[in-house]
């Protein structure tokens, strides 16, 4: 692997919906094994950015390269096969199917049948839903469904994992567990996390990218970002300043 080629690189990425500019000239670079947090107020363009990375939206202009390979304009399933997995903001799970089936559908893509079941069991253990393996996902709590989705992403064994608000709707204990899982998978995989929960960000963050009005406003270490006056003004408000 050429160390000079970043895992993910976007250049001048722009997305317009009619007159609304959701992302404007976003140039973003992520290294192998990096853990990056994206923050920014609602409507800053974080989810739109994720949707372009996963082929759910085709950028108006600009390019995306995954390990140097251009992926701009590819279909979602083609990008997924290259090794980008995403947990979307609103849980995107198979509600009518069991927890085990949800994980299986992802696990079987990269494993031979013999190794699928052990992998599914391992993931169920990791997301602590072994006792609910047979339950229908639609009947679980919001936090549990978040974990089912995280589990399906992990089971696909992607090279890059995008997590859009993974801790939303979770209890404090579940949030801690999620942070633990994120640190654990970051041992071997690169992760980008979008989150609003600052306590959660502090648990996991090293480098933080701040989005504001569709653009990247700043990119720095967590402490520098939290100390920055502009960031406080646009996003963090008085809660952190106090």
């Amino acid at each position, binding site marked *: 692997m050429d160390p000079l080629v970043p895992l993910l690189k976007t250049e001048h990425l722009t997305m317009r919906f009619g007159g609304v500019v959701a992302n404007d000239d976003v140039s973003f670079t992520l290294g192998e094994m990096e853990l990056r947090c994206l923050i920014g107020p609602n409507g800053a363009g974080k989810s739109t950015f994720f949707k372009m990375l996963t*082929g759910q939206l085709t950028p108006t202009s600009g390019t995306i390269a995954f390990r140097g390979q251009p992926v701009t304009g590819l279909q979602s*399933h083609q990008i997924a096969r290259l090794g980008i*997995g995403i947990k979307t903001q609103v849980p995107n799970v*198979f509600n009518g199917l069991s927890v085990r089936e949800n994980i299986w559908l992802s696990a079987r893509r990269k494993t031979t049948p013999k190794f699928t079941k052990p992998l599914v069991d391992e993931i169920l253990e990791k997301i602590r839903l072994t006792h609910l393996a047979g339950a229908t996902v639609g009947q679980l709590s919001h936090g549990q469904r978040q974990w089912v989705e995280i589990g399906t992403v992990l089971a696909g064994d992607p090279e890059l994992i995008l997590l859009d608000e993974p801790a939303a709707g979770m209890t404090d204990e579940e949030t801690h567990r999620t942070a633990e899982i994120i640190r654990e998978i970051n041992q071997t995989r690169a992760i980008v996390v979008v989150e609003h929960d600052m306590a959660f960000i502090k648990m996991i963050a090293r480098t933080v990218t701040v989005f504001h009005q569709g653009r990247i406003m700043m990119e720095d270490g967590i402490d520098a970002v939290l100390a920055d006056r502009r960031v406080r003004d646009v996003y963090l408000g008085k809660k952190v300043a106090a």
Partner: protein
Amino acid sequence: MPAPLSRLLQGLAVLGAIALVVVLPTYLELFTLMQMTLFAAMGVLALSLGFIWGFGGILSFGQTAFFGLGGYTYAVAAINFGDSTNAILLAILFPALFAAALGYFVFYGRISEVYLGVITLTVTLILFNVVNSTAGDAYTIGQARLGGFNGIPSVPTFNAPYTPDAVLTPEAGWWVTGGALIAVYLLMRLLLASPFGRIAVAVRENETRAALLGYDPRLIKLGVFMVGGAVAGLAGALYVNWGAFVGPTIFSLSLSAEIIIWITVGGLGTLIGPVVGCVLIQFLNAKIGSQQAFNSNLVLGVILVGFVLLLPRGIVPTLRDALAGLGRRTGPRRAPASARTQIAGAE
């Protein structure tokens, strides 16, 4: 119900169905047997839509397009070949290819579900009008005259495989048709248990998630649609074998709509439901047709409205849940499922 017990019961039910198909000619007079043959052929048609709608989430308003194409393909091929074996195979293959072509434009063109219904319905109408206007000597395929609105009379019926002289008796025709219904049912069960079937259900559940996991929803839906086309084509061949006749009314919209009613009544999302609904409604239709007091369309309408209001999930899912509830109440005493998960969750 524990899984092994349920599987044993299902196995016994299939054996029972096979035994029924085998012994029925001994007990029924020819007229009733012919009627059962028709029901079984329509049951195959019901399965074709029950599969793509219930498990692929694709509601086709024109399943009779493939049914009719299968019927005509069989008739034309049987007349030309003088042997029914390859004609049946063609009647499966051609509608499947037609479904592939139509499905390609629909699914790869990202046409929404409502328009899928409109397009399939329109295709049925087009086929009806095209075939309806093929009267005269100009419209022959090989030795088969398409005959326009008169249709194709005296189509050769099924013969023993590759032996054109051994034409099947009505009893053997029943065995083939009833056997085909059971075989299609079992093949669909196998298909649904295979990775393809499980992915198809996943695509029905959430297309976006399936794509984000690396599955191409368009391809999966196209595959499901082709299976539906192939099975509907087989049903068409069975239907033409039953009546030794095929006419353009095989593409009728009323039959297309009726299949949807069969499935709504029997139970969407099951395989046995569409067959149950199909036999039940056809039986009722036949009974009502033999008297003058009620109009059968009126009764059909009342049944549909009644089911949508009172049993929206259909007969089979409602019965299944009722039986499961009964099994729990009379079974060995144990904590209800919700309490058990809570205990497990607390550990």
